[in-house]
């Protein structure tokens, strides 16, 4: 038999229909739904008199619009309130499980899915959200879809999609002191660019990836889309099985044994052919930050703002100049001299318990700089509960951080959490696009430890100086 990549195995196991001149049809096992990209899909079902084929294969939760402050009075913004209410009403009408805002399990879809055991190795998972790539950390083929496709999956439990190409990114070695999964993925995006993975599914492999916890693996797969790849994959192993075992929706008893036996076959075969290979040395990755308005604009925290004059390509040079102007930065400035106004710790990239522990380890016994507003937003109610059980909330509060309710929050600023024009933010989120965290807001992406260090220093700072 011809050796297959992990992606090829999952793809082949989900192929429903393939014919010359047609785009293949693949089966979708799991569907996550949130309030922003689903209302028009449900409306489409109503208009055509269609029903979800398997409502139990879909899980709905509101995350983008929910307030991270006291929720007992509901959502103040009428549009946000309507969108969340619409999701709840649609879930009820179509028989879909919905986790309400006051449920301890509520949170960011990409944190809730794994926590509940909804995310399983070898499955196909979609959501009207580009960071669905997160679930690839379990060896699931998971990717973001548009609203028309949300409707398509609801109605048919399938998707029409072309087969992707295979890319293998191998990260070997041991991460240096102060370097995390976030730095690995920023280093990858810096290397291959924001379009480097377009048309591909990226499999991450190598000793540095295998050494990561599920939380770290999710951080890596989460940002695959920032490298242009709709999906990232990591072959499941004992770390994966240990995380999944006992989760509410995970298989139990005999089914568990059967599932694990099947999951053990989920790896790329020796000799499998990839369209592209990329190799990184984990030991050479420093703590990274972004300087510009694209996630590929990474620079070591010990580095300086780059100079567009050094860029030979005219269009890229123009892009750099526009980014520097937007970011209010001058070429040659040491990154550690860049003063910040705000800090955001959270998001589907870095809102899990391990991320909060890393940030708390830096914050402990220190104070947030007087001019900085810093907030910690747990990724889910269960993450928040766990953090509080460990006393992390107290550490953050005593250091001067705000301790918030779970949601997407200032990763994309659809709720009340946003930057004011010109404000600069050290953020653990995934996108530093113009206006992403609020019109005119300036975002620097980094790891949770780095963001906590920046909060203390009042400027971008090297986490290694705080450990």
């Amino acid at each position: 038999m011809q050796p297959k990549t992990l992606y090829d195995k999952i793809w082949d196991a989900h192929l429903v229909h393939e014919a010359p001149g047609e785009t293949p049809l693949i089966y979708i096992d799991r569907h996550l739904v949130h309030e922003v990209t689903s209302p028009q899909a449900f409306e489409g079902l109503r208009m055509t008199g269609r029903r979800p084929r398997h409502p139990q294969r879909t899980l709905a939760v509101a995350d983008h619009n929910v307030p991270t402050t006291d929720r007992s009075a509901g959502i103040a913004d009428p549009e946000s309130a309507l969108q969340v209410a619409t999701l709840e009403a649609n879930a009820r009408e179509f028989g879909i499980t919905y986790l309400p805002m006051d449920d301890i399990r509520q949170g960011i879809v990409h944190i809730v899915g794994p926590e509940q055991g909804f995310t399983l190795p070898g499955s196909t998972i979609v959501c009207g959200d580009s960071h669905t790539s997160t679930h690839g950390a379990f060896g699931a083929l998971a990717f973001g879809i548009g609203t028309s496709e949300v409707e398509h999956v609801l109605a048919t439990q399938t998707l029409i999609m072309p087969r992707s190409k295979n890319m293998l990114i191998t990260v070997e070695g041991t991460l240096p002191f102060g370097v995390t999964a976030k730095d690995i993925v920023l280093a990858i995006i810096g290397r291959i660019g924001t379009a480097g993975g377009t048309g591909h599914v990226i499999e991450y492999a190598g000793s540095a990836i295998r050494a990561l916890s599920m939380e770290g693996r999710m951080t890596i797969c989460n940002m695959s889309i920032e490298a242009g790849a709709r999906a990232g994959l990591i072959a499941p192993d004992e770390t994966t099985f240990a995380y999944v075992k006992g989760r509410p929706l995970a298989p139990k008893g005999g089914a568990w044994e059967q599932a694990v036996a099947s999951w053990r076959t989920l790896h790329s075969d020796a000799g499998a052919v990839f369209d592209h290979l990329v190799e990184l040395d984990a030991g050479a990755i420093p703590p990274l930050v972004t300087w510009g308005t694209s996630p590929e604009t990474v620079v070591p925290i010990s580095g300086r703002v780059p100079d567009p004059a050094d860029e030979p390509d005219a269009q890229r040079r123009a892009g750099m100049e526009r980014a520097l102007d937007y970011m209010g930065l001058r070429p040659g400035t040491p990154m550690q001299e860049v003063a910040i106004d705000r800090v955001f710790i959270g998001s589907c990239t870095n809102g899990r318990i391990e991320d909060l522990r890393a940030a708390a380890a830096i914050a402990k016994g220190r104070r947030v700089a007087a001019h900085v507003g810093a907030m910690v937003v747990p990724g889910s109610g269960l993450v928040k509960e766990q953090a509080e059980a460990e006393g992390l909330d107290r550490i953050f509060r005593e250091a001067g951080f705000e301790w918030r309710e779970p949601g997407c929050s200032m990763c994309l600023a659809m709720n009340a959490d946003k930057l004011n024009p010109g404000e600069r933010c050290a953020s653990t989120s995934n996108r530093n696009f113009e206006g992403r965290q609020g019109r005119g807001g300036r975002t620097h992406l980094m790891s949770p430890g780095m963001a906590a260090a920046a909060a203390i220093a009042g400027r971008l700072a090297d986490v290694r100086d705080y450990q």
Partner: protein
Amino acid sequence: MDKFTRLTGVAAPLPMINVDTDMIIPKQFLKTIQRTGLGKNLFDEMRYTQAGEEIPGFVLNKPAYRKAQILIAGANFGCGSSREHAPWALLDFGIRCIIAPSFADIFYNNCFKNGILPIVLPQAEIDKLLDDASRGSNAVITVDLPNQEISGPDGGSIRFDIEPFRKQCLLNGWDDIGLTMRHGGAIDAFEEGRKLAQPWL
């Protein structure tokens, strides 16, 4: 969705790389529960000041391009989020065709679901089209999907590639769900097999 066959219209130049979906339609407009009405906020933060006044230098605010139906753009157009609000906003503004050296996957896919034709061309051809598009209201080009050909104001023509299935869907304005429903038997059979092989899923 509306069919796409031949389109003759004004082409607007937007020679920026990495135009992301947050630029195309910022998050504050994603709170709608409808597909329509987003055109006025297309490229909102580049098009209007904080006070809501038009920024005259932005291409779609220039008199010649206010009714543009085609956009000529830089590489990696539509990167970022999966929001279908991006193609909805373009469509609502009146844009039916985007021509760029490359597109982000999800955006590219979302275009086809809405009767928008995204065309990938080499940078050299894009440069030529940008030059054509810079001629203001004379920048009328024709996109001929059946013949996979773009013709400019000077009569020259450029061939483009498109996946045959996607082409058929656009030409006929087909509804994907309707197409997939024809494979209901195959889906049933797949699910039966799945129940035996992977009962936990």
